[in-house]
C-alpha cells in the first residue's frame, strides 16, 4: 500500500451499483475529487437494502479512512441517525438524488451536522411533467393522458403519482386523465402494462412515464399496436436512449436527470466543507443542473445534449 492511499478520501454510498445511473453518480464524485484534491474514492453498493447501507456507513466511519461521505440514501429517514454520528466524527456528509431525514420531499438539511444535499423533489417533477402533458394536449380534444408511475410502493413515487393526479384535476377540460399504473422501472413490465392499457383505451394521446426503462417497454407496446407517432411520449430520465428517441422525434420530450452532475455537485460541497471552505450552496435542486429550461429536453435541443447515463 502506498502512502497516498492512506490519506483520508471520499466514500460514495449508492443504492445499487449495478446500473449506469449509479455509475454516473460515482463518476461525478470521482471527477470532483480529482479536480479539488478530495483523495481516493471508495464506492459502497447498498444493494437496495437499507439495513445494509446503514452497516456500510458505520463500517466506513470505523475504518477512519474518510473525511467526506456522498450518499444516495435507500431509506432517507433511516440513514439520518447514523449519518449524524458520522458528522460528529467530522465527516462532511452530502446526500444526493434524494434527501436524508424525516421529510424526504424537501430538499434541505435535515439532520445535525449535514453538509449538503443535491436532489430533486418528486412532487415538483411530477407537476412539471403534468404541465408538459397539458401543453402537449393543446390542440387535441378530448386528449387522453395515461401516467406510467414507477413503483407505488416507494413513498417518493407515491408522492409523484398523487401530485400528477392533482395537477390533472386542475387541467383544462380537454385533458382527460385516464389513470395510472406502475411500470416498476422494468422494460417488460412497462410493455405489458401499456399493452393492457391500450386494450382499454386505444385512443390515448399522451403517455407520461416516470422512468426511461419502462418507457422503452411501453413504446414497444405502442409500436406493436400500430400507434407509433400517434401517442406523444414524455419520459423522466434523460438517458442516452431517451435522448435518441427525442432527437428522432419518436418521443416528445425527456425530463432530464443528471446523475454525473448530481454526483459532482454533491462531492464538491462535501470536499469543500471537509477542507474548511464554504461551498456556494448547501442545498441544490437537481433540476437546476439540467441545461434546459424546466429540465425538459425536446427535439430542438436534443442534438447538442450529451446524456449522462444509459437506461
Amino acid at each position: 500500500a502506498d502512502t497516498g492511499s492512506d490519506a483520508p478520501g471520499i466514500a460514495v454510498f449508492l443504492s445499487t451499483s449495478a446500473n449506469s445511473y449509479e455509475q454516473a453518480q460515482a463518476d461525478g464524485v470521482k471527477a470532483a475529487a480529482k479536480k479539488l484534491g478530495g483523495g481516493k474514492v471508495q464506492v459502497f453498493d447498498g444493494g437496495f437494502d437499507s439495513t445494509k447501507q446503514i452497516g456500510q456507513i458505520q463500517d466506513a466511519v470505523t475504518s477512519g479512512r474518510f473525511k467526506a461521505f456522498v450518499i444516495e440514501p435507500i431509506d432517507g429517514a433511516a440513514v439520518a441517525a447514523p449519518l449524524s454520528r458520522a458528522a460528529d466524527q467530522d465527516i462532511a456528509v452530502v446526500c444526493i438524488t434524494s434527501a436524508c431525514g424525516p421529510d424526504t420531499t424537501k430538499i434541505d438539511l435535515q439532520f445535525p451536522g449535514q453538509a449538503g444535499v443535491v436532489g430533486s423533489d418528486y412532487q415538483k417533477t411530477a407537476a412539471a411533467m403534468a404541465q408538459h402533458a397539458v401543453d402537449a394536449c393543446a390542440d387535441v380534444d378530448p386528449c387522453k393522458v395515461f401516467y406510467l408511475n414507477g413503483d407505488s410502493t416507494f413513498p417518493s413515487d407515491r408522492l409523484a403519482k398523487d401530485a400528477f393526479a392533482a395537477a390533472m384535476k386542475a387541467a383544462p377540460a380537454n385533458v382527460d386523465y385516464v389513470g395510472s399504473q406502475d411500470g416498476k422501472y422494468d422494460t417488460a413490465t412497462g410493455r405489458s402494462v401499456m399493452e393492457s392499457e391500450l386494450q382499454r383505451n386505444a385512443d390515448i394521446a399522451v403517455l407520461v412515464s416516470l422512468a426511461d426503462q419502462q418507457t422503452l417497454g411501453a413504446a414497444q407496446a405502442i409500436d406493436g399496436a400500430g400507434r407509433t407517432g400517434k401517442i406523444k411520449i414524455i419520459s423522466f430520465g434523460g438517458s442516452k436512449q431517451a435522448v435518441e428517441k427525442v432527437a428522432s422525434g419518436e418521443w416528445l420530450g425527456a425530463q432530464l436527470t443528471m446523475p454525473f452532475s448530481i454526483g459532482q455537485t454533491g462531492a464538491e460541497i462535501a470536499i469543500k466543507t471537509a477542507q474548511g471552505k464554504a461551498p456556494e450552496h448547501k442545498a441544490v435542486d437537481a433540476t437546476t443542473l439540467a441545461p434546459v429550461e424546466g429540465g425538459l429536453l425536446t427535439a430542438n435541443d436534443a442534438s447538442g445534449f450529451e446524456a449522462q447515463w444509459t437506461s
Partner: protein
Amino acid sequence: MTTPTLPAPRSLALARDYGVVLSAVGLFIALAIASAPFRTGTNQLNLLDQWSTIGIIACGSTICIVAGGFDLSVDAIFALSGVLAAWLAVHLGDPTLALLVGMLSGLVLGVFNGLLVTVGRINPFVATIASSVVFLGIAQLITRGSVLSVAGQGFSRLGLQRFGDLTLPAVVFVVFAVLTAVLLARTVVGRRLYAVGGNYEAARYSGIAVNRVQVFAYAVSGLSASIAGVLAASRNSSASADIRTDLAFQAITAVVIGGVSIYGGAGTIPRALVGVLILALIGNGFNLLAVDPAYQQVLLGIIIVLAVAVDAWARRTQK
C-alpha cells in the same frame, strides 16, 4: 430429511389438478365478464407474450424441482446470458453467433450448479444463491455497471420477430413448454427425474446415475433462463447486470401454485403452467380493470390464497 407424507391416490391426483384448473377457469370467466378488452384475441396474445419469460423459466424450474433440486440462480443466469450475448455481439460482430452462445450459456452455468450440488454436496438452496452471486458478479465485471447496447438489426431481430400475430418469445415459450412437458411425461429421462426427486436413495439403488440426472435437471433450468435472458436482451437491443425482477421467485411461486411439490418427485409441466396462468390473469385483470395499485397487493394475496385453497379443498373432499 422428512419422510414424504403418504402420496395421494390416483383419482385424488386428478382432482388436485382439477382444483387449480378450477381456480384458473374461475378467474378467466370472472375477467371475461368484467372486462370487454380481456376477451379480445389481441389481449390473449399479449398475455402469452408478456408471460413468455416467466413461462419458459417456470418450465425449467419444474424440471429442476421435480428432480429434487432447487434453482435460485435463474435471475442471475437470465442477466448473465443477456450480457454475454450483447458483449459478444459488440465484440465479435456476429450477432447470430452471439445470440446462440448466449442462449446455450445457461446449459454450462446450470451444469456448474449441478456439480456444486452433486459432487460438491452443497445444499441446493445455498449452492444456487452462491452461484447466482458469482454469475451476477461476472455480469457486472463484463458490463462494468453500465448498459451494453447493441446497434444493428442483427441482434434485435430475434426478439422482435413475429409470426403473424405471435411474437417469437411467445412461440419459443410454447415450443419449450411442449418439449419439456413431453420430456417429463414421456421419456426415459423424465422417468429418472421423477425417481431421483421422489426417492434419491431408491433411485441410486436402482442403478440410476443420480448425479448425472440432477446435473441434467440444473442444466435444463439454466438453459430456460438463458433462453429467456437472450430473448429479452435481443428485444431490448441491450443488456445489463442490473436485475430488479424476481424471476426465480415468480417462477417458483407459479410452479408451486400449480401444485408442484417443492420436495421433488411430483408435478407436471401443465400444472406449472396453470400456476403461471393464474398469476398472468391476476396481473392482466389488475391492468385492464385499472385497479388502484394500493389495493392490488391485498387483492393479489387474497386471490392466490383462494386459488390454492380451492385446490387444497378439492384434494380433501376427494378423500
